[in-house]
């Protein structure tokens, strides 16, 4: 086993607020926009002061927020915090990726571009290294319910498609994988451990487990199953839970997390 610390990665979901006409961050539930929660730079500062291991900025409103606007948000965040940053949402070319890397971002997050433009992602991997790309796969883990049409149109796949997606990511040259169970998003009932274990069997890449985290035990279960990182959106937005508490609880469960 490697000896890296297990990472806790807050996701800051960027969206345009229809009423306020401002770009801010939101939480989601089953990938539907849920609630407006504030300004990305100030949230990022709070996460940094709480020793979040990495911050992920995702553009959920690609129709309204173009690359320049998104870059502006990311750059405002990146100028105020001194920690690893990843960013994604609509990045599908090496030119777009370069613009994001230039502002001090370590990794880009790609999902649909892996299907639509895999050669371009391979180019990014060749120039910037695989470690600079997180390949994301959003699947519908509730097997008894069909995928809602609004998610099908956004490229969400059934859980059966996960193995093929992961295998192709490795070929394209991503350095890390993020798996998101849309049916658990924002529900706080725990992540999809079955899918996580399956993913671990398929790929040797580090896995970021995402969607559904609601209590410490969920983090323990995910890390003990083998995830390298956990990405959370809703968890720190509403739960009366602090990073420091979570961290020491995880350490008490024998999970290797940063404490200082």
């Amino acid at each position, binding site marked *: *086993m*490697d*000896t*890296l*610390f297990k*990472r806790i990665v807050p996701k800051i979901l960027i969206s345009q607020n229809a009423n306020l006409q401002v770009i801010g961050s939101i939480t989601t539930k089953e990938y539907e926009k849920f609630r407006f929660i504030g300004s990305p730079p100030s949230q990022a500062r709070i996460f*940094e002061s709480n*020793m979040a*291991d990495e911050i992920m900025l995702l553009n959920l409103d690609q129709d309204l927020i173009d690359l320049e606007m998104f870059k502006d948000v990311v750059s405002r965040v*990146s*100028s105020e915090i*001194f*920690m*690893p940053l990843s960013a994604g949402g609509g990045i599908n070319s090496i030119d777009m990726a370069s613009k994001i890397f*230039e*502002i*001090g971002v*370590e990794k880009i997050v790609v999902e649909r571009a892996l299907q639509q433009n895999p050669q371009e992602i391979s180019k990014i991997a060749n120039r*910037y*290294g*695989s*470690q600079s790309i997180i390949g994301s796969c959003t699947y519908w883990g509730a097997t008894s319910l069909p995928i809602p049409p609004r998610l099908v149109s956004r490229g969400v796949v059934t859980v059966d498609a996960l193995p093929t997606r992961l295998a192709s990511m490795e070929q394209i040259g991503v*350095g*890390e994988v993020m798996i998101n169970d849309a049916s658990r998003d924002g529900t706080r009932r725990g992540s999809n451990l079955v899918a996580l274990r399956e993913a671990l069997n398929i790929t*040797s890449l*580090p896995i970021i487990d995402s969607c559904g985290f609601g209590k410490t035990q969920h983090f323990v279960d995910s890390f003990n199953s083998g995830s*390298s990182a956990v990405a959370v959106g809703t968890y720190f937005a509403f739960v009366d839970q602090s990073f420091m508490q979570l961290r020491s609880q995880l350490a008490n469960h024998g999970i290797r997390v*940063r404490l*200082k």
Partner: protein
Amino acid sequence: MNRLVGIVQLEAGNSASVERALEALGVKAIQVRDVKTLELCSHIILPGVASFGSVIDELQSKKLFAPLKNLYESDIKFMGLCAGMQIMGKGSQENPGVQGLGWFTYENIAIVNNEGSKAFHTGWNSVQMGDSQKILSASDNSSYYFNHSYYVPNVEEAHDDFGRTEYFNSTIVSIFKHSNVVGIQFHPEKSQVEGLDMLKHFVEWD
């Protein structure tokens, strides 16, 4: 000599992040692109996220390679970050045949995982100081952000006076200080409070 911190500007570098981190500490660094500016500095930082060969190429094309080579054991304090630390050695498996600054005799080698394939060391890890009590602000078990796939296995000239980080079966020299030079494999500019503290110690180093 007046204290003046310079950051060598590399195309595929993280110089902007280092510059911002220094700004947060109240230090206004100057951007170094040529020898003239280099010679004004009392403290020089060479940040690098690119490959060994591309850092050397860029230093050559900016005519900075030879002047930097002469900096060793001078009055100017030098900090090499990531690839900036690696190029202080003789060479690297990453680009065989390309010569480094040669201040130290080390050769950089690839990190391999338990299956024997090349691996990235990307994430947070801790530093064991061993016999060294402290280098800059790095004390035993401090954690920092790493992002690399080649590493310095040993710095003979530093006589074991360095910090180490374990990853798979590799023992990585994560920080060392010798003469007027400090080499750091991780990224202090991305390592939150502990990282900023380290940069502060460097610019205050007399």
